[in-house]
């Protein structure tokens, strides 16, 4: 397996009137070809900013330091127009909120067609709108759209011809979500980023969407951002846990789920593994204020296993065979004072 994406020491900050917000602080991440990585964490831990920075869409935030290498190419150094060629064709995004991510002024068919035209002609206005119509005839494009839709099991669910003539508000959430996945796939991306693909859906469409993602993750590289543990469990090979703008634990999906190392991961997982009658577990305290970090490990004010050292020294990344954890419980001794 070759390495497709390597993020090294990525920091993203937002300049606000109230001060500097550190949304991502020194993210290290690798994703291999054909691998699916799940990123989980509470709301506000920096997941969204992380993947937006991969597409360089993090504005008004800015990448303060670090590098993003995709297929050996540094994305941080690309010009705006070079980056435009990366978006959609190298790295595609399935947005989170299916109810706003489709343009209400166009039918589903027109928007899928748009995705194809952008892939074939770049995102410029003149090339895409004028030559785009001539470059390949409509029926060939329609065939490709139909092929992608049937791959997403939309073919048998609804009549494709009618679906393409529909406006977004006439469709159910599950179908809209899959239309968005189809739009992303039409760009033939090397890597797909799915932002909370299941959170805005009901149980039935969630199951269908998961089945679709599951089929997809066998043949392509994916990054799934979610706090839906079931979505992560059914699709991912590896997971990364984020807290306070840092990745605090990574490892193969099963080992992280079965033997979480970081106290935060343990608590995070226990919050969702409930059976009837259990007391509702909670992680005491609030999500971190990204402007004002506590000294040392940013989780220590909420950590049940906090030690004196935790409030003094920021834990370094401790590497195992195929896993990583940033916690003093696993320190090699150098970090303890």
């Amino acid at each position, binding site marked *: 397996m070759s390495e497709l994406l390597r993020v090294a020491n990525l920091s993203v900050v937002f300049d606000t009137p109230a001060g500097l917000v550190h949304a991502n602080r020194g993210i290290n991440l690798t994703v291999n070809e054909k691998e699916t990585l799940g990123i989980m964490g509470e709301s506000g831990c920096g997941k969204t900013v992380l993947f937006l920075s991969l*597409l360089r*869409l993090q504005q008004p935030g800015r990448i303060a330091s670090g590098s993003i290498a995709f297929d050996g190419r540094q994305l941080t150094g690309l010009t705006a*127009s070079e980056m*435009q*060629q*990366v*978006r*959609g*064709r190298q790295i*595609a*995004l399935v*947005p989170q*909120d299916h*109810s*706003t*991510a*489709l*343009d*209400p*002024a*166009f039918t589903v068919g027109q928007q899928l067609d*748009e*995705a194809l035209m*952008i*892939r074939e002609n*770049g*995102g*410029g*206005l*003149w090339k*895409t*709108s004028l030559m785009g119509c001539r470059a390949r005839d409509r029926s060939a494009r329609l065939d490709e759209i139909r092929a992608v839709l049937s791959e997403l099991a939309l073919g048998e669910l609804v009549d494709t011809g009618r679906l393409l003539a529909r406006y977004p508000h006439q469709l159910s959430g599950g179908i809209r979500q899959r239309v*968005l996945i189809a*739009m*992303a796939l039409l*760009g033939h991306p090397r890597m797909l980023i799915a932002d909370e693909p299941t959170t805005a859906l009901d149980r039935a469409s969630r199951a269908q969407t998961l089945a679709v993602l599951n089929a997809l993750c066998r043949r392509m590289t994916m990054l799934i951002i979610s706090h839906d543990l079931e979505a992560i469990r059914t699709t991912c090979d590896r997971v990364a846990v984020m807290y306070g703008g840092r990745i605090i634990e990574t490892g193969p999906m099963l080992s992280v789920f079965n033997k979480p190392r970081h106290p935060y991961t343990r608590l995070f997982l226990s919050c969702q593994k409930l059976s009837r009658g259990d007391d509702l577990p909670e992680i005491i305290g609030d999500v971190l204020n990204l402007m004002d970090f506590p000294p040392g490990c940013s989780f220590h004010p909420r950590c049940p296993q906090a030690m004196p050292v935790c409030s003094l020294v920021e834990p370094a990344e401790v590497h195992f065979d195929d896993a990583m954890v940033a916690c003093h419980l696993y320190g090699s001794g150098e970090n303890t004072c």
Partner: protein
Amino acid sequence: MSRLRHILTNNKARNAGVAILLLFALCATLAPWIAPHDPWEFGPAFLHPSTTNLLGTNDVGQDIFSELLYGTRNSLLVGFAAAFIAVSLGTVVGLVAGFRKGVLDDLLMGVTDVFLVVPMLPLAILVSVYLGPSIWNLILVIGLLWWPSTARVIRSQVLSIRESGYVESARALGAGDLWLMWRHVLPNVLPLLMAKFVLTVAMAMLMDASLSFLGLGDPIAKSWGMMLRYAFMRGGFVGGMWWWYVPPGLAIGLCILSLTLISFGIEEKSDPRLKRVLER
């Protein structure tokens, strides 16, 4: 067809507006055929209304009713052409300023504010005096001075649309700025643009009438403002010849009323929350 029916049965006030405007448009297109006389032809002056001259004649004996019909052409032409220039200009400025934000936005909006602050009519008078009286100069002057309000309105809408999910997701697909503006932002400000256009037509017609009344229009062309001017200068008002000055004034008022009703109708259709307020 069902779409047309939907538009027509939706709103009584707007239907009335559309009907009045259609009537004027009909008068304008059919003027040579329905006008009883040639409005440039001299004849007996100051005739009272009669069956041969429905609204009498003016100081040089031109038939006022025929003048009124021909004047519709001029007034509508100036109104729509000037509004087209003004709204196109305003849309481009508003779109670019709202979408690009930053320094360009500050610059464009600064210019817009200057134009908004300057009193329009005196400036228009000044420029048209400089350019000389002609229809095309009138159109140009009104068109080039009346864009700032459109720019402001469009910009504010663009600012909210550029942050919407569909613009973001299209950007993530690799769409460039121009493509996003053309394909996603413009179609979504279109309803507002239409309402604004119709309202600008009304404003342009009023401006045209004012400038013509002040003698800055083409003196030979027939327009409602010019008719009012001659009625004022050649004794129509003093002599109490209401058939000379009331019809063009009424025509201007009716035209503006119809355009305003249409504009409200469009605005209400694009934002149904306005409906109850307007019905009250």
